């Protein structure tokens, strides 16, 4: 199985690479369009600020490539947010794969949300054999609201999307690569997708 992690200079990719390695597979870091298009699985990471990450993506032309990929694609954290229609952070236009607008958490809670929260209302094969209310690790100041593409919910001040799914596209707000055994299981489920 050919697994690629999109390397566009905006992510803690080493951790994802190691997490895949712990599952017994090898992930390749690349920004090569052809290599990404030919992979069996594509992981789209991202940390940092939305508009500068999006600029890096458009700079490399990958913004035109990602929405047309046919194999399973997993966006993680900011990666998931960039797959949405837009983000309030830096007034950023996203890839538009998911029909949601990412907004900032209200000031009634500490921002960023850092730590382990729970996922519920689990849908899709990404969460096969994952129990409801499992704990996952997140670090984020912005969130995607609940929408028709929501495949897992969580709550921090209000209910929000912990994961999104549409056709071959998946996104998790949490970091499966840092979410202990549960996270490893979710990554394994992603690798098992057809």
């Amino acid at each position, binding site marked *: 199985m050919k697994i690629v992690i999109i390397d566009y200079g905006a992510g803690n990719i080493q*951790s994802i690479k190691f997490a895949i390695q712990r599952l017994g597979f090898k992930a390749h870091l690349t920004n090569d369009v052809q290599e990404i298009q030919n992979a069996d699985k594509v992981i789209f990471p991202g*940390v940092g*600020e939305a508009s500068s990450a999006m600029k890096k993506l458009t700079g490399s032309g990958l913004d035109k490539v990602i929405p047309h990929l046919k194999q399973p694609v997993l966006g993680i954290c900011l990666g998931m947010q960039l797959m949405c229609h837009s983000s309030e952070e830096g007034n950023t236009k996203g890839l538009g794969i998911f029909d949601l607008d990412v907004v900032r958490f209200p*000031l009634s809670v500490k*921002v960023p949300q850092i*730590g*382990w*929260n729970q996922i519920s209302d689990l849908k899709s094969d990404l969460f096969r054999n994952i129990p409801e209310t499992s704990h996952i690790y997140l670090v984020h100041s912005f969130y995607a609201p609940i929408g028709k593409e929501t495949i897992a919910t969580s709550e921090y001040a209000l209910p929000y999307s912990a994961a999104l799914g549409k056709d071959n596209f998946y996104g998790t707000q949490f970091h499966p690569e*840092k979410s202990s055994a549960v996270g*490893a299981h979710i990554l394994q489920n992603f690798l098992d997708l057809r």
Partner: protein
Amino acid sequence: MLTKRIIPCLDIKNGRTVKGVNFVDLRDAGDPVELAQIYADKGADELVFLDISATEEKRKTLADLVYHVAEKVNIPFTVGGGISSVADVDMLLQNGADKVSINSSAVKRPELINELVAKFGSQCIVVAIDAKLIDGYWKVHLVGGKVPTDIDLFKWAKEVEERGAGEILFTSMNHDGTKGGFANKALAKLSTLVNIPVIASGGAGAISHFTDTFTDGKADAALAASIFHFKEIEIKDLKQQLQKEGIPVRL
């Protein structure tokens, strides 16, 4: 529901884990990578590696350690100790650290916080503050708590937040190493003052101290070292007790 985090801290010197009592007297407590894996398996929510010899050592040793920890450990970890530049942070994050903590270097040059946040994002920048209560005022201390300043803890914490830090790790030097409980009054004030997570550090000696710091101290996370390293408290027992007392934890 977001849970309260339990964070074992591994003090590192020459690639080995040590824990200072009141920041002096060092004892050896094992191999950091192995210890990190054990803690991850036992239910630690996060780990902190503090390189207390960073200024004397080559940066490469720490980068190698970070790489090996990231390879094995499936929970997040923070690295601190002697970090003073964008290049330092870049190297640690590239090797797989999730967050870095800066301390003295931020006090000396506060703009460093802004620079790091602009380049790497708030989510990975922790500012550690060591402070000591002197004549009724919490004064910030530098260089692992050795050098006093006139800076007020609360003023500095507010500035740190405004400059974009994602989290504050507050160590009370009056409490550190005493095993008499966390500095909950100062912590509660801090946690109400800033709208970013606050990690309590210094003073853990019993399970009840964690309960107190999460309730009275309003802490979002609690960090401890020797009580975990010398198995005085098992993380699982600690979390079960916290859950019984109605504090949300990951079990």
